């Protein structure tokens, strides 16, 4: 039987969701796929200066998320003997997490109850509810 995949929605603050997913993955021999979504709307308004700098900022945001958040996390989880990979995406969190979970043919989605960042708190709160409402894959909400 192929290894099961658990998709973990990680906002960069709420470690308990990752920790719990690791415990479950160890217990069931599943692999983890961590998704980190950078909030982005194609319809947001930017100044002319921000337009010109957008590509640079996007690159910096990706780089920062990778080096400060995900690389250390992946290294840490791998060290515990769990197979793990990750992806960083721009867009609306709920939609992206669902799309990734479907693409990965995930067995389960793990999501935190709330995020702790000032922006993420607002956004991720609704992401949790959104996933709970529309996900067609069993979704674990980790307090």
């Amino acid at each position, binding site marked *: 039987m192929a290894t099961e995949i658990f998709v973990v929605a990680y906002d960069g603050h709420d470690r308990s969701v990752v920790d719990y997913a690791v415990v479950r993955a160890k217990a069931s021999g599943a692999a983890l796929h961590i998704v980190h979504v950078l909030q982005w709307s194609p319809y947001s308004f930017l100044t002319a200066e921000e337009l*010109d700098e957008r590509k640079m900022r996007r690159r910096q945001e990706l780089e920062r998320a990778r080096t400060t958040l995900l690389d250390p996390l992946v290294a840490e989880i791998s060290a515990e003997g769990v197979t793990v990979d990750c992806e960083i995406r721009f867009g609306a969190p709920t939609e992206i997490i669902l799309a990734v979970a479907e693409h990965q043919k995930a067995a389960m989605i793990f999501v935190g109850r709330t995020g702790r960042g000032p922006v993420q708190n607002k956004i991720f709160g609704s992401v949790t509810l959104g996933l709970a409402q529309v996900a067609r894959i069993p979704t674990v909400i980790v307090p």
Partner: protein
Amino acid sequence: MPKTAALLPLAGASLLLTGPAAAQDAEPGFSIDATLSAIMEPVTTPFVSFIFAPLPGTELPWIVLWLITAAAIFTVYFGFVQFRLVGHAIQLVRGQYTSPDAAGEVTHFQALATAVSGTVGLGNIAGVAVAVSIGGPGATFWMILAGLLGMASKFTECTLGVKYREEYPDGRVSGGPMHYLRKGMAELGYAKLGRFLAVLFAIFCVFASWGGGNMFQANQAHAQLVVITGGEESFLNGRGWITGVVMAIIVFMVIVGGIKSIARVTEKLVPFMGLLYLGAALVIIGVEYDRIGWAVGQIFAGAFTGLGVAGGIVGALIQGLRRATFSNEAGIGSAAIAHAAVQTDHPVTEGFVSMLEPFIDTVVICTATALVITISGVMQQDPATGLYVWDQGLGQIATEGSLSGVELTSAAFGTAIPWFPYVLGLAVVLFAFSTMISWSYYGLKAWLFLFGDSKTSDLFFKVLFCLFVVLGASVSLGAVLDFSDASLFAMGIANIIGLYFLMPVVKREMTGYLAKLRAGKIPRYH
């Protein structure tokens, strides 16, 4: 900094004040207008006179004909692209051809929205009032025509803006006429001419950023604030410098202090205010629905007979074309700077999208303003003849309280919705502010192109820009308007010469892209 850099601001300041040395808005005993006009006029008058010199034997300024002819040529050369491909432009804006992998990059919608908030502004409110009150309702017809033709100019310049943009190793992007004139012309073997045109464009762009992109905005924002704080009784009346200093401080906080949140709030409010403005206009037009037919009749009659307005048809035509061009900036080259940053594999796609800008700005918003002014009856007509009454002293159609510019628009909206002038006041200040922020950036780009990218030169420009905000709010409309117009239109000289050389490049881009699109080789995602 090179010596020329130090001289330029002086030249810029000297171009500030032209036209009548009226001191309508200066404090008694301290007439900024009169004093500065006396010093600066010798330098500014030749510039303004040259830009607006009429064609021999007519009253039509050659520069207006220059822009309109170019727009007409592009329209024909690209096979009426503005009518054929507007549907595709909307598909592009909706992101139907944007790859999900490009998430986080600048979308067509964002580039368009930023460009639109840079152009939608006082031109649509105050400029239209000027056009209709001087040229009569007939000016509206010519304004719409100029808007439709202008779509082809935007298409040409914005395609080039993306094609020849600079992409720096750190990911920053920089585009616009400075780059396509230089790089595009060099590709065609006219490197020297291209360089010359790029420099010429940049010089006028700096002036325009101080004029139309700054002083005109500050001036009209102040006028509107005076109206809503009690008119002649207002404590702001005659104290433009107060408005100026406050606005300058906020602009300073954004462009020098880097407080992006202020700019971001404005960027979000501007589309909202734009919709609110349009909504109010539609409500007024709807309420007075029995006068719509009459107003449309006035527009057509005025366009071809003049309706007794001084200057007749030519007056309507000149005012219509001039205000439309001032409002939508087609052929001027400014929009190419904002549109250049879009993420696309095909530069021409942004050209298509940019066509929506003159449409929204001129065909929709300017027309709405003109209809409200016409329908409201704020312009006095002789009941016996149906002709408009000309106010010789004001140089425009007589209005109750001798109103002009943004105050006239405000009064027109006020006839149907008495509290609307307050909303309009807020809208005007926000529009003015967002246009200033956009133009501070356009001007800065041109400035750095001329004087090199250094921190000192960057800061110097920004500080100067803030000083012009104060000046703009303190001087009279006539003076500001002449300089604003002249500098903005002057950008179109260099830009359009370049566009004529480069239009075959745009055509190749367009033909290649459309062939692929028809063959189904352009992936559609949604």
